[in-house]
């Protein structure tokens, strides 16, 4: 497994090379360099995954956690800040997800970004992002995760602000960075608390790692020390870290940056803001899951309810958006919230069919995987559409199915997947999530089912809005929308994955054949866990999804949309609120600009200039005035001097006498 280090090093070198030498490279060369490197690490990741999952399981039935590299990067007193690589089922899965999507995006960008100024810079940033994201998932300790977490944030910032001449892009990039930074503050404090009380930052909770030769051993994580210091410490630390995760994963109320982040190039949205970076929060919770479930189970409803509310909020906002990328962004928020909820409802770590409480973890990771694929496909498809019509607004589209057949097909597949139609990948994973929710509490289960229905509704609203309905003729007069092979190829690959995984897992889940399924590889305790659908849940969610799709078809498919207009007229205010995202941005704007800037920063700056500085200027002024006043003694009048002199002498004599 020594070659895993290359997975991190290669993109980093590619970033350095493209960043420094990009100026002198042609677009084609730099793109090829980036893509080649990514192809290489994709292959390496697949090799890693193959080696890892085909290796023998440990005695307890789980896959061994390997640490091929670990070295102390920065000693921090009794603690160590290590950098290394940790391979366990979820990190290996993430390697695959990230490299696959990233590779697709690299290829796709050839077409999408063709001729853009800063093409080399774009590929350099993509490499940086890929490196950071991979570093994040293979982190051996929480601090390494934080380090790459920040790097991911900054590469996201750079990529959102890629079109830096547009004010909206600049504002969006700033917002994304600052909001996640704010959330990361919680993460950092959580890390500090965690590190202080457990005496280690490492993920070595149970001490069952297989360290490679020559790696620095971890300082074992002293969970019992933390427990001894106070029962609330670990939950507090975990909750604070969850705030960080919520920020990255755009959980309400820290979600506001994600819709704006759509100002970046669309492939970037596909890679960062749909498939990989935004699931970092989910990944973080999953990584710390053993701690959550063992020591902080009472606090897990925080995750659940934040997730549930976010899912609902995002879904309802998505129903009213007109910008196709915004719809996808809110759908992403909603889907990530699904993953969060799934983790939250996972109350047990022991698998086995009778313990439905442990499905959530597996379901969450599974949904992460499937969602990454179909959401990337959706975003890339949206990219094709935008590339073709040069607009983000649904009004500008309609009837595009004739012009963009491949995009249309893949988009439809992905929409079906996200809606949870059987034989598409989303069905299996979402079904598991709902099963887990049902097992936790039927209320949560039904709410999530309803939100899944909303998902199907707004996705098909989007689908019909783009590919059906009225054709926007005047837009097409100049040039006919068309698609390029280099851009459609990734779409096809991603939808093949979606369909393939979907068919396989659906068949396996219905028990039609006995094979490995996702749960065999990844489950809460690492055991081989075969997915079996709960027929009631599966049928309910399928029926509901189909109904929603039918409803959406009824409302949005036609050339005119009388029902939609009527709905709009019936509740214009609701639509307006949803369209304005329930004014969350305005609230933040108000807090930051009107309160923090106007009532904190400005007064402080004023205070500094006038009070503190004024005090020192007052001192100077006082000295100046005083000396101005006493300089009168130095009148230049000899007689005055003589008088003072005389008095002085007399006083002296008097003292002597």
């Amino acid at each position, binding site marked *: 497994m020594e070659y895993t280090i290359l997975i991190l090093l290669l993109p980093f070198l590619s970033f350095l090379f493209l960043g420094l030498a990009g100026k002198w490279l042609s677009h084609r060369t730099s793109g090829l360099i980036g893509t080649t490197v990514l192809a290489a690490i994709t292959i390496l990741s697949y090799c890693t995954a193959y080696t890892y999952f085909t290796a023998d399981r440990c005695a307890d039935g789980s896959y061994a956690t390997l640490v091929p590299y670990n070295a102390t990067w920065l000693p921090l*007193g009794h603690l160590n800040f290590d950098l290394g690589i940790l391979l366990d089922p979820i990190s290996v899965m993430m390697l695959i997800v990230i490299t696959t999507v990233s590779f697709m995006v690299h290829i796709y960008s050839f077409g999408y970004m063709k001729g853009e100024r800063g093409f080399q810079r774009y590929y350099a940033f993509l490499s940086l992002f890929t490196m950071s994201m991979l570093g994040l998932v293979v982190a051996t300790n929480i601090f390494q995760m934080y380090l790459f977490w920040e790097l991911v944030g900054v590469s996201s910032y750079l990529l959102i602000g890629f079109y*830096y001449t547009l004010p909206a892009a*600049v504002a969006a*990039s700033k917002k994304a960075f600052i909001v996640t930074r704010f959330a990361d503050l919680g993460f950092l404090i959580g890390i500090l*608390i965690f590190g202080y009380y457990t005496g280690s930052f490492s993920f070595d909770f149970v001490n069952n790692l297989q360290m490679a030769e020559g790696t620095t051993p971890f300082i074992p994580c002293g969970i019992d020390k933390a427990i001894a210091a106070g029962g609330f410490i670990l939950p507090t630390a975990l909750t604070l870290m969850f705030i960080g995760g919520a920020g990255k994963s755009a959980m309400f109320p820290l979600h506001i940056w994600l819709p704006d982040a759509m100002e970046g190039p669309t492939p970037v949205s596909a890679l960062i803001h749909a498939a990989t970076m935004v699931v970092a929060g989910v990944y973080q919770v999953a990584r710390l899951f053993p701690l959550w479930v063992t020591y902080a189970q009472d606090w897990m409803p925080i995750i659940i309810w934040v997730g549930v509310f976010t899912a609902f909020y995002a879904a309802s906002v998505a129903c009213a958006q007109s910008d196709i990328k915004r719809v996808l962004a809110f759908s992403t928020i909603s889907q990530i919230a699904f993953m969060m909820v799934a983790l939250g409802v996972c109350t047990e770590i022991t698998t086995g069919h009778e313990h439905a409480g442990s499905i959530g973890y597996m379901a969450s990771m599974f949904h992460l995987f499937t969602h990454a694929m179909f959401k990337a496909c959706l975003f890339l498809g949206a990219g094709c559409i935008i590339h073709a019509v040069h607009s983000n607004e649904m009004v500008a589209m309609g009837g595009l199915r004739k012009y963009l057949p491949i995009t249309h097909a893949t988009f439809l597949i992905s929409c079906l997947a996200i809606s949870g139609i059987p034989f598409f990948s989303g069905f299996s994973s979402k079904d598991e999530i709902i099963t887990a929710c049902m097992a936790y509490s039927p209320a949560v289960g039904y709410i999530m089912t309803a939100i899944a229905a909303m998902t199907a509704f707004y996705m098909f609203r989007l689908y019909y809005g783009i590919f059906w309905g009225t054709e926007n003729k005047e837009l097409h007069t100049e040039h006919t929308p068309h698609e390029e092979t280099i851009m459609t190829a990734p779409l096809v690959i991603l939808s093949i994955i979606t369909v393939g995984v979907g068919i396989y897992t659906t068949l396996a889940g219905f028990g039609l054949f006995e094979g490995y399924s996702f749960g065999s590889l990844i489950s809460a305790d690492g055991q081989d866990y075969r997915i079996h659908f709960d027929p009631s849940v599966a049928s309910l969610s399928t029926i509901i999804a189909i109904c929603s799709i039918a409803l959406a078809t009824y409302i949005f498919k036609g050339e005119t949309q009388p029902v939609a207009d009527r709905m709009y007229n019936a509740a214009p205010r609701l639509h307006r609120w949803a369209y304005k995202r329930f004014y969350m941005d305005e609230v933040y704007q108000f807090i930051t600009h009107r309160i923090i800037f106007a009532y904190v920063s400005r007064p402080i700056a004023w205070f500094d200039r006038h009070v503190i500085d004024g005090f*020192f200027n007052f001192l*100077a002024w006082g000295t100046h005035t005083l000396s101005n006043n006493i300089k009168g003694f130095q009148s230049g009048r000899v007689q005055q001097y003589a008088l003072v002199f005389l008095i002085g002498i007399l006083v002296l004599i008097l003292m002597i006498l």
Partner: protein
Amino acid sequence: MNFLSLFVLIPLLMLFGLWLAKEQKGIRTVMVVGSSALLALAIALTLKFISDRSGGATAEMLYTASFVWFEPLHISYSVGVDGISVAMLLLSGVIVFTGTFVSWDMCKEYFLWFTLLSMGVFGFFISVDMFMMFMFYEIALIPMYLLIGVWGSGHKEYSAMKLTLMLMGASAFLMLGIFGIFYGAGGQTMNVVDIANHTGGAHIIDFSKQCIWFPFTFIGFGVLGAMFPFHTWSPDGHASAPTAVSMLHAGVLMKLGGYGCFRIAIYLLPEAANELSWIFLILTATGVVYGALSACVQTDLKYLNAYSSVSHCGMVLFAILMLTTTASTGAILQMLSHGLMTALFFAIIGMIYHRAHTRDIRQLNGLMRIVPFLSVGFAIAGLANLGLPGLSGFVAEMTIFVGSFENADTFHRILTIMATTSIVVAAVYILRMIGKILYGVNQNPEHAKIHDAHWEERFAVICLICCIAGIGMAPGWLSELISHSVAPVIDNVKTVGHLISQSNPFM
């Protein structure tokens, strides 16, 4: 003659050379040769120090030498270095070297003062005699007045006067403090190591005396370290100073404050440090947040960076006062990191100002398209400032936070959390600035014509970026180097202050 004295001797030779130099070419040659020699010496010293340490040299100070200078007051020219001073010398070497390239077109007199200033700085870091430290401190201070007052911009006379007066006021405090320590320890030696270890005729300073002199020394050095509320010289001074002077000032001179606080106030007055640290902790933690928040609404680039320096330097003193080895290591790392990144920042701001003739954020726009090199450098400086991993700021801040968290009581916790918020605010003001001046589209036809950096400017910027990235990527050796030297000081504090005092009302 000890080879450390070369750090003072080379600037002296440079002064002589400058005096002889006739044309711009000669002046440049002298400066480049001299500053390269200083940098090379600093690097050589670092390597030698590391190899000697690993070779088993365990003395607190290495390469010590002492010559009696003024017998009645026991003042001697004593030199010696430990890991902290080595790191600081390295920093000074880099800043002086790059500063030379940044002030490429300046005249002879400017370089004379510049070199004198460097001499003071180097002398300060190699001294282990309190009086010599004080003397070099003053040598470093006075040229600042002329450099700002003569070659500055804006309200330069006002700023120069303010800066000099405030720092002079501080050195009055400092002198009282130094003599207080000297007589408190028996009046037999000015040597820092001797006083700390109670050797060479020094005895333990009474607790009550320590409590009197600690504020004097700490404030005396703290003013130079931009401690809230004595920081106001810094925005004005930096805003008016010429580019390289800002660099040198923020990059090195302000570090004298932190270094002095650590080397004299904490090291020599450990009990008082334990007893009184809470007062200064509150001040510095306030300063950290305060500086960051006021940076948010500044419109002048230099003011913005000066306030951000207040915040970052406040972090240095804050970490020192945490009195843990890790936090103090972080403080020294922060000094290095802040020195480099602020120098880079000021260098680039100066270059932009030189070209665009304005530093107003509202008037600059879209520089990325016009001056890509400077803009990228600026963005890197900004990212280092907000603590991006891989650049030096992250390493220092994380070390400080982890170290501060080693104090388990609520008081320290609350202050630490307060200080951590500054990293969010830092993101706000840095990104606001970057967004406003680098991004967007240039509106001003005047600015469209400005040209990108010259080769010497590029060279300086690249050097600084390399150093920042170097520390950011491989901080281990530096941290090791520093923490070994910090440990004895902190151990000294910890042994005398067996428990943190009861007098603190917050505990």
